[in-house]
């Protein structure tokens, strides 16, 4: 549950598939144009999935479905890519050669 002034993330469809226009590939035409934004919850309380309003950090009011409270970044360096090691070894070998590699 989120309460007023909690930092939350919301989601909303800006354009439904039938509202999309312009020169779009077929796959893109079939899906909505979606939007995500973060802000402080304006309702007294809300549950995940509720339609809510938020005030963004510049003071704009946006509305959408509540999807996350205290949204975090889940960035990382992915799983190990062994090809990078192969590149490193071949680069050293190409420049320094033989035993120096």
């Amino acid at each position, binding site marked *: 549950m989120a309460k007023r002034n909690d930092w939350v993330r919301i989601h909303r469809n*800006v*354009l439904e598939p039938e*509202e*999309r*226009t*312009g*020169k*779009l*590939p077929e*796959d*893109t035409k*079939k*899906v*909505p*144009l*979606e*939007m*995500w*934004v*973060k*802000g402080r919850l304006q309702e007294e309380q809300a549950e995940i999935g509720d339609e809510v309003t938020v005030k*963004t*950090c*510049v*003071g*704009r009011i946006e509305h959408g479905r509540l999807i996350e409270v205290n949204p975090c*970044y889940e*960035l*990382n*360096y*992915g*799983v*190990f*890519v062994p*090809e*990078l090691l*192969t*590149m*490193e070894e*071949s*680069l*050293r070998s*190409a*420049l320094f050669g033989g035993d120096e590699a």
Partner: protein
Amino acid sequence: MIVDRSYQAVTGRKGEIIHQAMGVDYSQYERGGILFDYEALMNGPGYTLEDHIRIQRQYNVGNTPIFELHNLTALARKCAAPGKGARIFVKDEASNPAGSFKERRAAASVYHAKKMGYKGVIAATSGNYGAAVASQAAMQGLKCIIVQECYDSKASGQPEIIEKARKCEALGAEVLQLSVGPELFYEVLMMLEDTGYFNASLYSAFGVGGVETLGWELGHQFMERCGRHPDVVVCANAGGGNLTGTARGLRKAGCGAQVVAASVDLKGLSMASDKQFNRKSFTTAHTGFGVPYATDPDHSDVPRSAARPLRYMDRYVTVKQGEVFYITEALAVLEGMEKGPAGNTSLAAAFSLAQELDQDQIIVAQETEYTGAGKHIQPQLSFARQNGIELLFGDPQTEIPGTNIVFPAEPALLRARDADLNHMRASLIRRQAAHAAAPLTDAEIAYLAEETKSSPEFVRMVLEKLGG
């Protein structure tokens, strides 16, 4: 007053909204027919090169160092014919406050917005420009909104773009994220209308004029360090502002270096496709932007773009994704610099082009960019593999964008390939001629020759083929 916010109504108000959001009446630069006065556009806001330098110094932008890459030069010489292999340098643009050369493009926009009394700035960008605008807005005390194209319909986000969102938020900006589609511009127009903020377009005179300082610095730094100007300057090319501004700055420094555009080859991938969005590992500096913006510069978010790369381009080369990743790894393990990868597009091309030049010549990749979780080479390749892209060693020439990434099996296989510049010039000429109501005048033909760095004879030849 009830405002119609339908797609048709909002995009129909585009001219009016952009005028309000930039304070510039672009019609003043039109000169009848297809003609417009490009230099008047560049000088219109009243910021000279000296003004850009002053503003950038005030807000901690630019004056970045140049580094000679001795080991990469040595490696290029091992791949080259005897006596060949120019000295390779990079300009360390990652040392700008937000980590890329884009801050040069943001500084005057934010400065001007503040001077004109706007309360905030908006930029539509999934790349380093967002962080640059956010950083300058923070420094100069304006509010900032960045609008990104970030996710596919499964809500899977490109890790590099998510990192950019994190950085923009860390610098105090609001980040509005959208799924794939060119209607991003509709959302931006609504936000400009709602907030009354300034449109910090990459294609304004500020957005391009600000990069002139980079070319100008290059000219002076090489005179000071090497006693001569560089022979070749390689610029990553997407929207064209980087190359345009750099080339203009080089000219103003009296430097006659050959200006080469470099883009990552993403041929065959649609930039607006939901399914293909996450099958590419480069979100900028690729041919999907580079070619259409070069041949049709005025399809940007302003009526007349200040980025007109064909006016300045001597050569256009492409490199493969696998080659940029490879040079990124080389920059780390042979030069001790962990940067990019997207910002190393020009370096990948420079490594190859150096092998065509003599050893006493100088080639410069004119940027680096910061790296970090999400945008680093490791998460980008990990994400590619997760999306079904095959990672191979071999001849990068065989790489198929969206299917595989082919790293050079040996350094000599990293080869920049020439794009057909005359074909692009002809494409621009045909496109603009199609807008002419009557046969082109001599003035219009001279204008098209300037637009394409060609000659009136070349323009006439293209037009004759068109008529025939």
